[in-house]
Each structure stands twice: as structure tokens, then as C-alpha cells.
């Protein structure tokens, strides 16, 4: 370990004294200063903050990836080219210690640069956060959807298998199954019945999936969520009524700042045990608008100016969804009715909503709607649009989820996000060192820079190169060879798109330690470690001097 660390320190000194480090930091800081000014996004503070976080993390990852590849490909290759390796290899350091030391030096350099950019991105984001929001909704989004670390739970998946079986049976009973099979055999599969059956059943399965995730006019979805592990407790306070509006019944209630800090605009609050929603949030008061039923003779009747009110701020959960209509309404707005039910207690919350089509929307409700077993039931009713026209609506399983606050805040999540970037860099450093251990610097760079886009687009390529056995036979061989070649690449390279922190940060989603650990195992143990082991082996066998006669 001593030898490795001595080499690593030397590599770090080398990296730090190259102009590359200074140039990179200047570039990074310039991008972070200029980007928020140039990119306004949708004009909201939330949009600008998300853009900063996305570009900050993205640019950091990209710039550091390039630098890592250049440095790691060069540290060994240039040592061998300039023969500086002679004086190191003849010292009591094993070849494997030399390789690992070089790799570790680059990784430590990455950690330093990543620390600088993490502080910079975080500082700029906090600076942006303090700027004035466009409206209360914008502020609520910033505070509850951006500077948070929310856990995300997907619904229990639609039962596509049962629907598929039902549809197939129906086709068979109507003799349409065999007809379709014959047609496919004649036109597409050159008489191959097995292949024709596969195509047909894939088609039926696809239809079943679409049907399960769509509802017709007046139809409804019902999703069940499991495993919601809420953190946080309710906050109680006795406030006093500042004023009441006789016209619409609005109550203005004064409360302490810590309590008001827990409320969000449009979010739930309980006043004298009545569930209400915050309609205005100020520094020393909030407003709610009870229905007339709530006021008349109910628990709110006694709330006159100067009276005390029992107020409770519950933890909240959010239901995020994206709805796509078959035919978009003229005003591009979808109307719906939502019902959220606590399966154990039967407590329910209902709301009519109007949301833009094909845009992610969020519904914030009290966490009391989650039962003690962490379950929640959510219902959706498809309502006619403003002109009274009805259309089918599709909400895919992956486009609906429950988001809730768990232990740990934005700061910890941001660090974990940068941890994901670091894992990416650690892998690239291993690739660079591997290539540099037996190739010249330009060729090693070429290998490294081929790895980067392949890793970034691995998911996309994976889908594109999926073996399509339905293609004409002349192309089959080529496609299959390509797919097999890609399978090899898939084993060797991690999927950077999957491990990128950008989507997590933009969505305010919690990156769990489990996820980070999983990526670390897949990236470090399953990929970087074998690559480094091969690099050590190659370098051990390699003659470091050339024969000169």
C-alpha cells in the first residue's frame, strides 16, 4: 500500500501542476456563472434552479470525464514514452503497485476537482434559491420539489398478463387468432409458424398493455401503492385568528415562523381538526378557505377574530402523474377527479383538477392518507373537457408515482449525486490506465473516448440492437453478429444514462445509499476492478524498455 500511495501522491502532484486543472476549474465556474443568466427555461425560479442543477451536474460529469480520460491514458503511456518509468520501475515497487498508484492518483485528483465543482454548483443553486419566485406556486415547487430528496414509489403494475390471456382466448374463440397467424406466416415469416406466433402474441401483449394503462371517457384508474416508509411527524400549534372574510369565509391565522415553515402553498393543514388547504402563505400568517359547510355550525364556527385555533401541519406526500389524451382538448387542459384513500382507516381526500396535457403534475396531500402498513390507494376519473367532449386518456404505470419525504435532506442527496459522478470517473480512470498500460497515448485516448459515448448511450444502443428475428434472413446474420458484439460491450461498460444523477436532482428524488452502493458494486467491483487487474497483468508482462541496437 505504501508503494501505491507514493505513486498516487506523485500522480496527483503531476495532475495538479498541469495547466489542465486550472483551465478546467475556470471553465466550470464560467459555465456555472453564465448558464443561469443565459438559460431561463420556463421563466420560473423552479425551472431555472432545475436547469442549473441539471447543467451543473451534467457539465461537471462531462468535463471531468474528458479530463479523467486524458490524464489516465497519459500517466502510464507518457511515462513509458519519455522513459521516466525507468527510474520508477527499478525502485522497489511492483508493477501492479505502479499501475494502481497511477489510477489512484487520478481518482484523488478527480475527487478534488469534484469537490470544487460540488461546492460551486451548490453555492450557485442556493444563491438562485434566495431569488424572488414568480408566484407562490413557483416558490412551493422550489421548496417541495427541487431542494428536497423525495423517495419515489411506483404503483403495483397493471395486470397485463391476465388481460393478455383474456384477449388471446377471445381471439381464439372467434377464430381470428388462426386467421392472423396464417396471414403472418404467408406475408412475413416465410412459412415459419413459430415465428409468426411470436409476432402475433407480441402484438396482443402490446394491445393488452395499452388497454390496461388507458381509460375511456368517464372511465377510471385505480392504483395501489405499497411500501411507503414515511419519516417526520406532525407539528401542532395554537394559533390565533387574525381576521375572517365574510364573503368567501377565508380565515387568516397567525402562527410561529417554524410552523409556517412547514406549510406549503396549496398544501394541507388541519384547523380545529378540519382538513383544509393553504391558500396564502406569508411570513407570520397563513390563510385557508373552508367551505360553507365547514363553517356553518361545524368545528370552525367558533373561529372569530382573536379566537385561538388548533392547527396541525402534517407531513405531506405527493402524487406525480402525466396524462396523455388520445385527442388533445382545444385548451390543452385535462379535467379529472382524484380520490386518495387510506386503505386501513378509510380516510379519503378528493379533488377536482385541471392539468396541462402530457405535462408532469403533482398533487400534494396529507401523509395521514398512508396507512400504518405504508399502503395507499389512488383513484382517477376521466372527466369531459371544458367543451364537454370526452376522450380516452393514457397514464402509463411508469408515469404515476407517490413521492414522499424521507429522512435526509437535499444536501446529503446532492453529495450522493456527486458520488454517482465520481463512480463514473473512477471507471473511466480505470479504462484510461488500462489502455495506457500497453498502448501509446493517442491510441489509449482513442479507446477512452470511444468508451465514453458508448457508456452514455448504452441503453439506447441496447434497444436499437435488440435482435430482430423477424427481419428477412439476409439481414439476420448481420444483426445477430452486431447484437452479440454489443452484448460483450454491455458486459464491459456501465450504463452512464442509468447512473447519471441529473434526473434525480431535477426531480428532487432521493438517491438512496442502497442505489449508490449498487452502482458502486456494479461499476467498481464488476467492471473497474477486472479492468485494472488486466492492466496490472499486461504491465507486469510488458518490457518497459525497447531493444536498441
Amino acid at each position: 500500500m505504501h508503494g501505491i500511495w507514493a505513486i498516487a501522491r506523485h500522480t496527483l502532484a503531476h495532475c495538479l501542476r498541469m495547466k489542465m486543472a486550472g483551465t478546467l476549474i475556470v471553465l466550470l465556474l464560467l459555465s456555472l456563472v453564465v448558464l443561469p443568466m443565459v438559460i431561463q427555461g420556463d421563466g420560473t425560479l423552479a425551472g431555472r434552479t432545475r436547469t442549473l442543477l441539471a447543467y451543473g451536474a451534467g457539465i461537471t460529469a462531462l468535463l471531468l470525464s474528458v479530463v479523467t480520460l486524458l490524464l489516465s491514458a497519459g500517466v502510464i503511456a507518457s511515462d513509458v514514452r519519455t522513459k521516466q518509468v525507468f527510474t520508477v520501475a527499478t525502485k522497489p515497487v511492483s508493477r501492479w503497485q505502479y499501475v494502481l498508484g497511477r489510477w489512484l492518483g487520478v481518482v484523488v485528483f478527480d475527487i478534488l476537482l469534484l469537490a470544487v465543482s460540488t461546492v460551486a454548483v451548490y453555492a450557485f443553486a442556493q444563491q438562485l434559491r434566495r431569488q424572488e419566485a414568480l408566484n407562490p406556486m413557483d416558490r412551493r415547487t422550489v421548496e417541495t420539489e427541487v431542494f428536497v430528496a423525495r423517495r419515489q414509489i411506483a404503483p403495483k403494475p397493471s395486470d397485463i398478463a391476465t388481460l393478455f390471456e383474456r384477449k388471446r382466448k377471445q381471439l381464439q374463440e372467434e377464430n381470428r387468432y388462426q386467421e392472423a397467424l396464417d396471414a403472418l406466416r404467408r406475408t412475413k415469416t416465410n412459412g415459419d409458424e413459430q415465428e409468426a406466433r411470436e409476432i402475433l402474441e407480441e402484438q396482443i401483449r402490446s394491445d393488452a398493455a395499452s388497454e390496461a394503462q388507458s381509460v375511456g371517457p368517464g372511465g377510471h384508474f385505480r392504483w395501489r401503492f405499497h411500501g411507503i416508509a414515511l419519516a417526520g411527524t406532525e407539528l401542532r400549534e395554537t394559533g390565533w385568528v387574525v381576521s375572517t372574510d365574510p364573503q368567501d369565509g377565508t380565515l387568516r391565522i397567525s402562527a410561529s415562523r417554524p410552523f409556517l415553515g412547514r406549510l406549503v402553498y396549496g398544501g394541507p393543514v388541519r384547523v380545529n381538526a378540519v382538513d383544509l388547504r393553504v391558500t396564502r402563505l406569508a411570513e407570520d400568517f397563513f390563510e385557508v378557505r373552508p367551505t360553507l359547510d365547514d363553517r356553518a355550525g361545524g368545528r370552525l364556527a367558533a373561529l372569530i377574530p382573536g379566537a385561538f385555533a388548533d392547527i396541525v401541519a402534517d407531513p405531506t406526500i405527493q402524487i406525480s402523474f402525466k396524462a396523455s389524451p388520445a385527442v388533445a382538448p382545444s385548451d390543452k387542459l385535462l379535467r379529472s377527479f382524484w380520490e386518495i384513500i387510506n386503505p386501513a382507516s378509510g380516510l379519503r381526500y378528493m379533488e377536482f383538477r385541471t392539468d396541462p396535457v402530457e405535462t408532469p403534475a403533482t398533487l400534494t396531500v396529507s401523509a395521514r392518507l398512508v396507512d400504518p402498513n405504508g399502503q395507499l390507494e389512488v383513484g382517477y376519473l376521466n372527466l369531459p373537457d371544458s367543451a364537454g367532449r370526452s376522450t380516452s386518456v393514457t397514464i402509463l404505470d411508469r408515469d404515476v408515482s407517490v413521492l414522499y419525504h424521507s429522512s435526509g435532506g437535499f444536501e446529503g442527496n446532492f453529495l450522493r449525486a456527486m458520488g454517482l459522478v465520481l463512480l463514473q470517473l473512477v471507471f473511466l480512470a480505470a479504462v484510461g490506465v488500462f489502455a495506457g498500460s500497453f498502448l501509446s497515448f493517442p491510441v489509449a485516448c482513442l479507446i477512452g473516448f470511444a468508451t465514453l459515448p458508448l457508456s452514455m448511450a448504452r441503453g439506447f444502443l441496447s434497444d436499437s440492437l435488440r435482435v430482430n428475428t423477424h427481419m428477412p434472413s439476409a439481414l439476420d446474420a448481420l444483426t445477430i453478429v452486431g447484437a452479440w458484439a454489443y452484448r460483450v460491450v454491455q458486459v464491459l461498460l456501465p450504463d452512464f444514462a442509468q447512473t447519471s444523477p441529473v434526473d434525480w436532482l431535477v426531480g428532487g428524488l432521493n438517491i438512496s445509499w442502497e442505489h449508490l452502493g449498487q452502482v458502486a458494486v456494479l461499476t467498481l467491483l464488476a467492471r473497474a476492478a477486472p479492468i485494472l487487474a488486466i492492466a496490472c497483468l499486461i504491465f507486469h508482462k510488458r518490457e518497459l524498455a525497447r531493444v536498441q541496437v
Partner: protein
Amino acid sequence: MPDVDQSVVVARNLTKVFRDFWLREKVTAVADLDLDIRPREVFGLLGPNGSGKSTTIKMILGLLYPTRGRIAVFGRLPTDVRTKARIGFLPEESYLYPFLDARETLDFYGRLFRQPRRQRRRRCDMLLDMVGLGSVAYRRVGEYSKGMQRRIGLAQALINDPDLLILDEPTSGMDPIGTRQFKDLIRTLAMRGKTVILSSHLLADVEDVCDRVCILYGGRQRALGRMDELLAKDSLTQITTDKLDPRTLETVRQALAQSGKEIRQVSAPRDKLESLFLRIVQEAQEQRMATGGATSGGPIAEFLRAGPQDAREVLTRLVAAAEFEAISQEAAAQKPAGQAPPAQDTRVLGQLIQLDQPPAEPASPQGAETPPEAPQVDRGVLEGLLGRSEGTQENS
């Protein structure tokens, strides 16, 4: 055959073949080389360009692997970490890291030997003073002249007080002062029982310091033996006297003629250019003239000098020397008839006995005004062995 365990470097049938991309044999850089480099000797590797000197050295260092044959250093593979811990290597050019300054350079190499911080610091100071770079220790090595880089290269080779010092063209790029100090250093190290392998084109350097030489040509060994054996002219006698007037000279000639001998050459001995140069520099230094480069080196670093030794250590060394002599004689006896047995190496014993005495004054250019007596040898023999005509300019 010498006892392998007693040799620092043993090579048997060492062959290195250079192949092209298609693995076709292109050049045989070293062919069937046998070497036994013994402890405490200064061994010279000589040969013209492309004779296989550097290839041999790189195989001793584990930077190249033999195609055939085997090589062991301190009884182990050259790539063994324990072997490398006992070696110091100065390559033909100082392949140093230009972004480090001299102190950082030595500190880095010291770390590789796992030296504690205090030891590293002390050795860095001593070595920098020794190679005359103490005043520019914080300048980046990339800004050094070639000679200064050679000096720091030499310092890094000595950071571990090596048992085996391998020097590839060590004095190339060095000024005469550095060269002189360097030769003094080699002698000092040899006195301390270190083994030195020296590869050089500068025959005067080799001649001054080496005990044995191996001359290579075309990758094959052409001559191997003690310097005095190779260079001695047994048929001639040289007498040095005070200056003779012509009459006395004629008397000597007549006296020799009566014995049937004749004077072949009469000449006034000349001072060596090296001595003249060192004297001039010393005068300049005494006048405190400014210089932007390396200053004259200081004393040889304390840890590299023979320090006061206790009686037990001296005894151990003497016993080891006696054992080595016995082994040498035994080895000589085993040589096939027709090969002359090597002369008994009394120099080693003499050097060891000197260790019992107070340490010699540190070598310095000032002290080097009168260089130690170099063996009066005919360099033509050496040149002839290298296939050069006498008087050819050595500048390769």
C-alpha cells in the same frame, strides 16, 4: 565456475533477440553472454554503439526480459522487489519528472524505498549538497541544464545507499568537476564494499575507476578481465625521473645499449587537461565569481562515505574478503587449461583495510588538484580492443 551465491549479478547464456511486428527475428542484441559480477568490484561494460551494453544493463534491471538464458541479481530475479531495494540506477539520460523540483524528486524516490520522513529529508540535504544543487533545490528539474539533470539523476540513484550501483553513461553531459567528483564517489563506494556496474564510452573514465571490464561487440563478449591484465605491456619498462640533460640521457642510452636494450621513447610528461581545468576553476571559486548554474559539489554524502566502523564490522568485512579471495582462487583453478588465472585481487583487501583507518577527507575539486595516480597504461590497447585506431576522437 564462480559460486553463484557469491556473485552480485550472474548471467548464463543471456540472449536478447529483437523481433519485428510479425515476430520475425530482426536483431540479436545480446548473444550467449555469461557474466559474474562479484561483490565490491567496479565492473565496466564497454563496447561501440549497438554492441548490447544498454540491453545487458536493462536485462539486469528487469526492464527487458531475456529471450533465452537466465539472469539473477543478488540471487533473485531482477524484477523482485527485494532485489530492486538494493539497486541504484542512473540511466543514460536523466529521465526525471520536469514538474518536480530537485528536493521533491529525491523525496519521491526516497518514498519508494519506504524511507522514514526524517531519513529522507537528511539524505536529500546531503545528496543535494554533494551534487552541488543545494542552492537550486527548489527550481523545477525541467529548468535544469543537462549536466545539472545528470547530477540530480546521480543523487536519485544513491538515495537508498545501494549495494549495487548501475551507471549507464554516467558522465555524459557532466562538466569535468562533476566527472571528477563522480569518479571519487565510485572509488568511495567501492571502498565501502559496494558493487558498481559502469557502462561508458569515455574510456578514460572506465580506465580510472574499473577493476574489471567486459568488452562487447555485436552482442557478444569479446574480452573480459582485470584492467591491469588487459592493459599491461610486460615487454616494456617505463622510468620517470627528474628532467635529464642531453648528456645524461646519452649516458643512459649507452648503459642500456650495453645490456642490449634501447630507449624507444623519451618525452617530458604532460599534466592532464582535467587537472589543469580543475585548478583554474578552483582559482575562480577562490575569487568568489558568481555562477547561475550548479556550484561545485560538496563532500560525498555522509551516508555514502565509510564512516567510523566498529571493530566487529571491520572484521566481518575482512573475513568476507578472505572468503572471496579463496573462492576466486578456487574458481580460477577450475578454469579450463589455456585460460590465464586472474591475478589475485589484493586491491579489495587493501581497500577494506583502509576502512579501519579514519575516514578519508571528503573529495572535492579543491582536494582534487593533484589527481590520484592513474595506472600508467597504454590506452591504445583498449582502443584496439574496441576496434578503433589510436587517437580516434571518443565522442559517441
